[in-house]
């Protein structure tokens, strides 16, 4: 790979100083004159009809300025449900946490007090929490038409994928392995709680909000409020993470806008941390039933999955269970049932369809390797994907190198051993798992203005949720323009000043918007040649709208993770003692911030493996642990040192050959840890998270 001038060298973020001095302004840091504060009242029941809402006492509280309920607001939040009408305030309420009312008042304490003065007469309804139970005859109906969420085409059947002939494949196998796995609801738990500020100037609406994509958010707010898009402006300067739960417009933005309209003053609507856990969304819980056929030499003949995903009562995500595609196999059948339940809503969390699916398939493949007396690394090298779904060639495929170089850095041969080896209460074990993630190409845009001082003002509609997107865009611009990084001034996060960008979801910013930056830079260079450098007040402007596509090829990032754990067989405690993450993300634009991405994804994945689960009380239908402590989010002390290995394949697509990175980082991590635990104790825990009680349970 040829080395470049600016791209590919470890570079501190261009806004790093702001981030360490408190000068970075997040939405919640803003205060507008005359601004009111808003709070939301939520259902305490998992399923209930609202008979009556009495606002008298709340309205009488001095300082209360506006109240919204279903009685006076029937605005539909279209991004909140891809299948049914989801209002901002629903009746019946369908999960404990569904919004009932929103109040704006002169300060947050008054708003909060007012929510407590609202009297709601609920008629409780039967509820169901488990997706398989929800599909049984006689289960409480959560949405009209039944609890199996329809497909995009409206069909009432599972989301299905098939190739080959599954029965033939199972028949041709020497051995058939069958097992099932579960994964829980996990909250995104980004550190910044939800907050939005809405301000009207006559008929123009400005919304300050921590969104992952200002462009989507902008068009969707306009759609839901039936406003002309040019009357809406969305601003997001700094934002405290999201990991997939802020790709669209959100209810809190719409509520803030409506309250501000109603009260005639700007409104800041804040969610509490508990509301964030309950009422935004988390990863969908799954139940996965697999059958895998294999020949005695380790060749796969069939993979079958029947899976259930609990989406909560509104369909906000795919509910997919992915991972099978990392294996080549002629006969595959996957049927997934996205199902309504009365739990918290589930949708995107980093690598949405994958980590739970990879946990399932990689646990089973590990068992198969052991049963066939094959080294798990060799088994994967033999069966790993060579063509996408055995059909499309990949634009580049570094998976084999990820496995080989990762194993070497990890010292696999030294650390891996027969299951449950060694004596004494502390047992060590090594495990690995692999993964892939689509590295899409698609529409985005960029504008560059060159002034007479030689500053290149780069306008991109990115928000930088923590991925260093601004810095990445600046590096790409500096490289293409052949100027020092300091000459690039990035303008971001404001729909009034930035062109369309895809938004930071699907790990697409570098590939999508990066392309547009390159094209705009090329255009600018052409103009400089033609017209010369701008003088005095003149400005040269270049713009690009790009929409590259792929034909007959698949473009993916690849990853292999290796974990070593120490299991205390008396206490059930697991400690991750070594971790190597090998990644093929094509060319790495900024190795420094890319390392942060990998380490962060791995940390989140270890949390998914060992700790995290939103627990529900079956009797009441209420969530029990809505917070960092209860959810046992990873801390400094839980986190091992993670070693990152880059496998930089040459990829002919994407800016300088860059492929996607942010999301693949979490994908094989829960599976790698689970497989290491099996290697340590010789027993398999099939339900995430692998907590002490489960370890002691399988050892008993």
């Amino acid at each position, binding site marked *: 790979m040829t080395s470049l001038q600016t791209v590919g060298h470890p570079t501190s973020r261009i806004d790093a100083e702001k981030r360490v001095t408190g000068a970075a302004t997040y939405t919640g840091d803003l205060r507008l004159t005359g601004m009111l504060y808003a709070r939301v009242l939520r259902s305490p029941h998992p399923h209930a009809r609202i008979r009556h809402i009495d606002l008298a006492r709340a309205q009488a509280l001095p300082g209360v300025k506006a109240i919204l309920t279903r009685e006076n607001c029937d605005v*539909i939040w279209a991004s909140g449900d891809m299948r049914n009408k989801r209002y901002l305030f629903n009746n019946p309420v369908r999960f404990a946490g569904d919004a009932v009312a929103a109040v704006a008042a002169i300060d947050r304490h008054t708003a909060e007090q007012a929510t407590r003065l609202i009297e709601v007469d609920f008629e409780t309804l039967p509820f169901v929490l488990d997706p398989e139970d929800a599909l049984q005859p006689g289960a409480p109906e959560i949405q009209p038409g039944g609890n199996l969420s329809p497909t995009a085409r409206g069909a009432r059947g599972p989301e299905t994928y098939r190739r080959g002939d599954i029965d033939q494949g199972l028949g041709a196998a020497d051995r058939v392995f069958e097992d099932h796995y579960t994964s829980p609801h996990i909250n995104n738990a980004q550190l910044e709680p939800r907050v939005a500020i809405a301000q009207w100037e006559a008929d123009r609406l400005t919304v300050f909000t921590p969104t992952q994509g200002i462009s989507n958010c902008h068009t969707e707010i306009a759609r839901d409020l039936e406003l002309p898009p040019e009357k809406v402006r969305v601003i997001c300067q700094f934002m405290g993470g999201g990991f997939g739960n802020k790709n669209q417009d959100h209810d809190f933005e719409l509520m803030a806008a409506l309250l501000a309209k109603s009260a005639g003053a700007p409104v800041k609507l804040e969610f509490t941390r508990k509301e964030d856990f309950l009422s935004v969304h988390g990863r969908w819980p799954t139940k996965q039933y697999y059958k895998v056929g294999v020949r005695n030499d380790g060749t796969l003949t069939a993979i079958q999955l029947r899976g259930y995903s609990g989406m909560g009562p509104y369909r906000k995500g795919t509910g997919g269970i992915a991972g099978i595609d990392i294996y080549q196999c002629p006969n595959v059948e996957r049927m997934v049932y996205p199902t309504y339940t009365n739990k918290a809503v589930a949708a995107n969390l980093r690598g949405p369809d994958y980590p739970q699916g990879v946990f399932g398939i990689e646990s089973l493949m590990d068992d198969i390797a052991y049963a066939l007396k094959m080294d798990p690394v060799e088994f994967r090298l033999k069966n790993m994907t060579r063509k996408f779904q055995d059909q499309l060639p990949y634009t580049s495929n570094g998976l084999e190198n990820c496995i080989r170089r990762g194993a070497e850095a990890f010292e696999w041969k030294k650390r891996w051993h027969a299951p449950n080896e060694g004596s004494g209460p502390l047992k060590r074990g090594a495990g690995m798992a692999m993964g892939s993630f689509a590295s899409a190409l698609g529409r985005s845009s960029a504008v560059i203005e060159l002034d007479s001082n030689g500053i290149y003002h780069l306008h991109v509609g990115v928000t930088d949720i923590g991925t260093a997107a601004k810095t990445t865009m600046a590096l790409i611009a500096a490289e293409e323009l052949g100027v020092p990084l300091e000459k690039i001034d990035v303008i971001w996060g404001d729909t009034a000043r930035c062109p369309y960008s895809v938004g930071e979801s699907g790990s697409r910013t570098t590939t999508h918007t990066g392309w547009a930056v390159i094209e705009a830079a090329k255009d600018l260079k052409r103009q400089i040649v033609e017209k010369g450098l701008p003088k005095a007040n003149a400005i040269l402007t270049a713009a690009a709208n790009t929409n590259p596509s792929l034909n007959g090829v698949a473009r993916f990032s690849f990853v292999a993770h290796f974990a070593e754990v120490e299991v205390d067989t008396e206490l059930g405690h697991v400690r991750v003692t070594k971790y190597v993450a090998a990644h093929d993300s094509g060319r790495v634009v900024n190795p420094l911030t890319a390392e942060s*991405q990998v380490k962060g994804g791995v940390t989140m994945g270890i949390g998914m493996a060992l700790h995290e689960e939103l627990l529900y009380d079956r009797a009441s239908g209420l969530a029990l642990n809505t917070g960092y402590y209860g959810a046992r989010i990873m801390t400094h002390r839980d986190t091992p040192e993670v070693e990152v290995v880059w496998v930089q394949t040459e990829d002919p697509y994407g800016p300088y050959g860059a492929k996607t990175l942010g999301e693949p980082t979490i994908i094989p991590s829960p599976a790698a840890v689970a497989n290491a635990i099996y290697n340590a104790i010789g027993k398999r825990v099939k339900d995430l998270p692998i907590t002490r009680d489960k370890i002691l349970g399988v050892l008993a």
Partner: protein
Amino acid sequence: MSRISRRTFFEGTGAGLVASSVPLRGQPAPPAARTVPQTAIKLTVNGRVHRITVEDRWTLVEVLRDYLGLTGSKIGCDRGECGACTVLVDGKNVYSCSQLAVWADGRTVETVEGLAQNGKLDPLQQAFIRCDGPQCGFCTSGQLMSARALLNRNPHPNAEEVRAGMTGNICRCGNYNHYVESVLAAAGMRSAQPRTKA
């Protein structure tokens, strides 16, 4: 209250709707007329003395952020679980969401805004930049203040001591490796080099 349907909302866009949808029963009383107990306190924040009257229910972080404009300290949970609000009170790192402002009466408070001295960044801030500590940056002020408190009492910690000293500061972006590396680098215990293998 008048209805705000999508239809009337759109049609009524403009002053008319504002007037018709505001009326709530009774006139809201101005804040001063309310009966919430208040106390006059004196706070020294980053070397500056502030005398302010606070409502007894206000937390320290609310006063710092909403009334003194020091928004560097963040609220991640508002219930003592995440550490985003960490400040130093009389030199000790505390969760400012879990302290009432009145408790800080007469005390000295240091926030992230006070770390840089005369325009020069604290060694911790410099190391955080070099090692790419902050991702989204929302936990960063808290991480910095816990690290500052740690280095004040133990100028040369090892990695395990850093993790222990900062374990009350959650980073959901999961950048703990880089935070530990930053603190060790600032304390002169390790060089700040990314350990990437390419």
